[in-house]
């Protein structure tokens, strides 16, 4: 399609795809990817630590196994128990691959191995499958498809030693960071919609979830200290933040306030819901790495004594 003057006039869908492609591929600071490479597997390993130390109960033959229910919706795939030695081997391989990813040693192969092993563990024991382990395989696969070991890790250090004349990487193609940004916005938005479809518009939900085995000393003290109306305020804030996440993070002037509210929300979740602390750390660190403005990101890097 050409204009009279010969200039190209793209059809609208093509133009939209071009704009989307430019947005997707716009270079991003590599520090974001390095933070994700460190904090995603570290949070998942933190969550898994209480399972891996009992690998024989988790994946092996020593613990309770739900029998094969033949396609029951609560059991997406039946996987029989492993011999205990194999369960321990898988637990050890999870730790090894996760730590390799954290320190950036053979980062991409480590990400692939970690993703496969966590996916196996998640399907093998539905009882110990939680949001963290359901998300971990896809999040670490996203790291596998990125140059996550290109800087701030053992791989990068070894490469610099081999050839000191090669300049250090400062940016990556935006796709991998965009995935994490879109994931967070989707997750918040979906969670907000599920809450609105549930009881969050009509009942006090937060208060009722603080009275079982998830209760921490901090949540018990806060329940005693805070006035009743504050629980409605927190509930409203969470709902508005989550349902409106696509807008808060799309608009430049609301992005940083949304980041602060989001980090605050995850900090409160980690403080008040016992074992959910690992989920809070996972989400909070991804939120920070994905959306913190460049200036504070570079300031933190300077404070740590790092340079381009």
């Amino acid at each position, binding site marked *: 399609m050409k204009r009279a003057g010969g200039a190209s006039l793209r059809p609208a869908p093509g133009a939209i795809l071009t704009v989307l492609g430019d947005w997707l591929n716009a270079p991003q600071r590599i520090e974001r990817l390095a933070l994700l490479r460190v904090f995603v597997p570290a949070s998942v390993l933190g969550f898994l630590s209480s399972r891996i130390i009992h690998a024989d109960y988790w994946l092996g033959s020593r613990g309770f196994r739900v029998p094969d*229910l033949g396609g029951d919706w609560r059991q997406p795939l039946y996987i029989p128990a492993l011999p205990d030695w194999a369960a321990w081997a898988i637990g050890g391989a999870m730790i090894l691959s996760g730590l390799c990813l954290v320190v950036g040693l053979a980062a991409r192969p480590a990400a692939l191995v970690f993703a496969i092993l966590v996916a196996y563990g998640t*399907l093998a024991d539905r009882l110990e499958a939680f949001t963290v382990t359901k998300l971990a395989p896809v999040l670490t696969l996203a790291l596998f498809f990125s140059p996550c070991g290109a800087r701030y890790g053992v791989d990068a250090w070894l490469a610099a030693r081999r050839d000191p004349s090669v300049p250090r990487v400062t940016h990556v193609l935006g796709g991998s960071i965009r995935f994490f940004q879109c994931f967070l916005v989707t997750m918040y938005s*979906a969670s907000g919609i599920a809450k609105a479809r549930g009881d969050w518009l009509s009942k006090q939900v937060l208060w009722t979830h603080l009275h079982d085995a998830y209760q921490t000393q901090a949540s018990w003290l806060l329940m005693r200290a805070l006035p009743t109306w504050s629980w409605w305020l927190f509930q409203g804030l969470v709902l508005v933040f989550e349902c409106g996440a696509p807008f808060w993070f799309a608009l430049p002037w609301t992005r940083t306030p949304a980041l602060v509210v989001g980090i605050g929300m995850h900090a409160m979740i980690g403080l008040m819901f016992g074992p959910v602390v690992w989920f809070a750390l996972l989400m909070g660190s991804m939120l920070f790495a994905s959306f913190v403005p460049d200036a504070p990101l570079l300031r933190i890097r300077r404070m740590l004594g790092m340079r381009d």
Partner: protein
Amino acid sequence: MTSATADRGDGMWLAPSPVGRRSRRVVTVLGIVFLLSIWLDAAGSTLPSFFLPAPLRFFTQVAELFPKASLDAIEWRARGWRCDTGQFDELDVRPLFPIRRDDKENQFSRAMHFYHGDPSVLEALDQYITDAHNRLNPDERVGGVMLLSLRIPIPPMGEPGPRERWQPISDYPSTVTRRHWWMPPEDLRKRRCQDVR
């Protein structure tokens, strides 16, 4: 793949992508399917079940986080039928389920939460607890376990009540409702006890 290959002329050194252009497109489409499935699932749509097999869909069922208010706090418990006395006494099953034994992320609480209405799972749970308990406590053998829930009323707002902690069933007041979900048949209990004599 750690050296910068593309100097954009503005001091920006771009890491080379580890995947080719065509693979990037495939990965992008897969990423969109993943995100869309998460969103649709939480929005109550059954669409993802038409194009994702159950083991893959499982990884997208992640966003429905605490959507409902709890009516009561639920505790899952077990009572063992003692071979020596012929009576049901509470068993502390926490040592038998050591993964996160003190909160509701342990396998016993999770199994009861998901399958309290499924006799085949409750029977397997009864068998596991009986075997594991008898192995650890050969002098206090049981022939089977009764599985039950305690519904502990949530205090009204502004009156948080005492700090949550594990306590025996007998210490709970009568306002805490007990409901039995599994009772091992009498002949099974007796047979198990006779088997070891």
